[in-house]
């Protein structure tokens, strides 16, 4: 596998790159310069580490879910508890990194897209902490199904702009955020929430999320003295999964599984499983797997979890899929809901519906594996925001 990815043009093999309107090239080049300077600046890394620790609450625990493992009767399941971070998900890691960069570039305004609202809350939080103006774009459908996060953002001083175009979800929120960015390039930083978009976002967000895998590696070595057999993480855009996977890529003995949203069925329009029906194309600035029709129009998607409900996937995942290093699989709405309920009742941990997709896949695999096998699941977020969905699904 060619390392380090990406190349100078932001390509992970054939995927990635920069496909944006000309007006955005200058802020992207400015961001690229600021990012490279920051990467070489020890003071930046010190400040980032300090905030991850003192503000976000890192390191997060690695927890051996013994009761769940026993019930399943096979592999041992370990949970990387990103749900315990400030704001309730891994998203804060990236927001602190990009917030520092925005400050370094002298930007006074942060904008962001959000699906489940976790990235929007994390952005609003960082904006408040740094004293920056904040505007979050959110699809109308997502605002309805993740209402608690809308209130959080407003309480934090952010403006939440409803997006009523297209499918009224994450994809359309990104369109609108890009329109804002192209209009307000001089004072605004677009704080993209996942390993998507034009270079350098995919590599930059990965670098800010790598801490998940670095910690998990140390923790599992301390706890059991060896590397895990399988890593599992849900994949919307792909930031929590790449954050967990990245530092294990050279370890051939560690299997990795990314879980996409299988939605209602695997018919186009009913799911968000890019590797089960998508094909390479360009969306939101990057060349990657995209759910689309034969005319190149982006397809509608569905998932019960707003954070996975998106038609494209980070370009590095496309490359990891192509190379076969990571296996990608799908878990549907019903199975994710059941997994969320099971984890809540056996371990006292209410997972976000996004993360519940990864828990469900671990629950599928564990019974077929020996008791010595170690499955490490990224529990990327907590489920408070999903109470309304649990309720309407009738599992409360």
């Amino acid at each position, binding site marked *: 596998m060619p390392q380090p990815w990406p190349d100078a043009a932001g390509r992970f093999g054939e995927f990635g790159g920069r496909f944006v309107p000309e007006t955005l090239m200058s802020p992207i080049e400015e961001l690229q310069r600021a990012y490279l300077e920051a990467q070489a600046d020890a003071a930046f890394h010190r400040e980032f580490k300090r905030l991850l620790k003192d503000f976000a609450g890192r390191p997060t625990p690695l927890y051996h879910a013994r009761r769940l493992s026993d019930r399943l009767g096979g592999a041992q399941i370990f949970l990387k508890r990103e749900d315990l971070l400030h704001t309730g998900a891994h998203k804060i890691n990236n927001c602190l990194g990009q917030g520092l960069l925005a400050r370094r570039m002298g930007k006074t305004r942060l904008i962001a897209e959000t699906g489940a609202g976790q990235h929007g809350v994390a952005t609003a939080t960082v904006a408040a902490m740094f004293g920056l103006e904040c505007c979050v774009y959110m699809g109308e459908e997502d605002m309805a199904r993740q209402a608690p996060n809308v209130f959080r953002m407003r309480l934090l001083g952010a403006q939440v702009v409803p997006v009523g175009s297209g499918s009224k979800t994450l994809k359309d929120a990104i369109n609108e955020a890009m329109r804002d960015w192209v209009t307000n390039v001089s004072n605004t930083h677009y704080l993209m929430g996942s390993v998507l978009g034009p270079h350098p976002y995919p590599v930059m967000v990965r670098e800010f999320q790598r801490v998940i895998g670095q910690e998990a590696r140390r923790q599992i070595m301390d706890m059991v003295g060896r590397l895990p057999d399988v890593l599992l993480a849900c994949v919307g855009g792909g930031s929590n999964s790449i954050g967990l996977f990245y530092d294990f890529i050279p370890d051939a003995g560690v299997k990795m599984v990314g879980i996409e949203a299988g939605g209602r069925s695997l018919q186009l329009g009913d799911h968000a499983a890019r590797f089960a029906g998508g094909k390479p194309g360009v969306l939101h600035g990057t060349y990657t797997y995209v759910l689309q029709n034969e005319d190149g*129009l982006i397809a509608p998607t569905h998932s019960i979890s707003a954070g996975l409900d998106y038609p494209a996937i980070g370009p590095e995942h496309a490359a990891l899929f192509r190379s076969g290093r990571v296996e990608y699989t799908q878990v549907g709405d019903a199975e994710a809901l059941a997994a969320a309920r099971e984890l809540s009742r056996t371990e006292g941990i209410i997972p976000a519906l996004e993360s519940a997709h990864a828990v469900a896949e671990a629950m599928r695999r564990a019974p077929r594996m020996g008791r010595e096998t170690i499955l490490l699941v990224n529990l990327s977020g907590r489920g408070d925001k999903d109470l309304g969905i649990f309720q309407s699904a009738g599992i409360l």
Partner: protein
Amino acid sequence: MTVASSSRLSIRFSELTQRGEKGLVVYLTAGDPSLDATGEILQAIDQAGADVIELGIPFSDPLADGPVIQRASERALKAGTTLRNVLASLEDWRKAIQAPVVLFSYYNPILQYGLTAFARQARAAGADGVLVVDLTPEEADPYLKAVRQEGLDTIFLASPTSSAERLQRAAATSSGFLYLVSRTGVTGEQKELAATLVPLIQRARAVTPLPIAVGFGISNPQQVRRVQQFAEAAVVGSAVVHAIEERFSTGGARAIGDFVQWLKHGTESEAA
């Protein structure tokens, strides 16, 4: 480039120069509100004096466009418009109009069509140039190869945020004309032209002999005239699309022709 110098676009711009005139480039979204309507509107605006026509290919996620063109894309997609049926229709439309036609698209539909197949079909249908709004010169090599192979002009955008280096690159990769974006932001009408516009035109002039067209935010004859003081052509998009939205259902193609005539001469006939 030998091809560009004899292209219909280059010829159109040199004719304008010889007559001491400036050009009006008119944008419309293909298939808005239907492909048949587009055929009629193209004839009307051609007769009304559009010097170049930009034909927009509707896309599901038009992130460079403001609300007016977003709505047009939605109407066109709802009517079943695709790149494929636009290219098929263009072959007929082309026979009835004089103005050079530039296809204006997002990259993904072209990529899925296949770059080579797209270029061949676009040429066969009578298109003269292509502008891809989310494709910058650094990612354009495979596209350029395919499109130039068929002798189509390639138009790139430069904007007020483009560095000297980027401006030069956009000019060097463009043929037919260079398209300057008048201001930062998405497409849409506005009251005032941006203060950054004239310096941008001057910067562009210093690096390219290509004709310069200026677009984004130009919506009335006064703004057209103002832009034409400094550039070879003014592009009007959202205002025309807005006129189609408001007037086509009652006034037909003729109302849109009248609107274009008003833009061109500042005099709109009674039909509008």
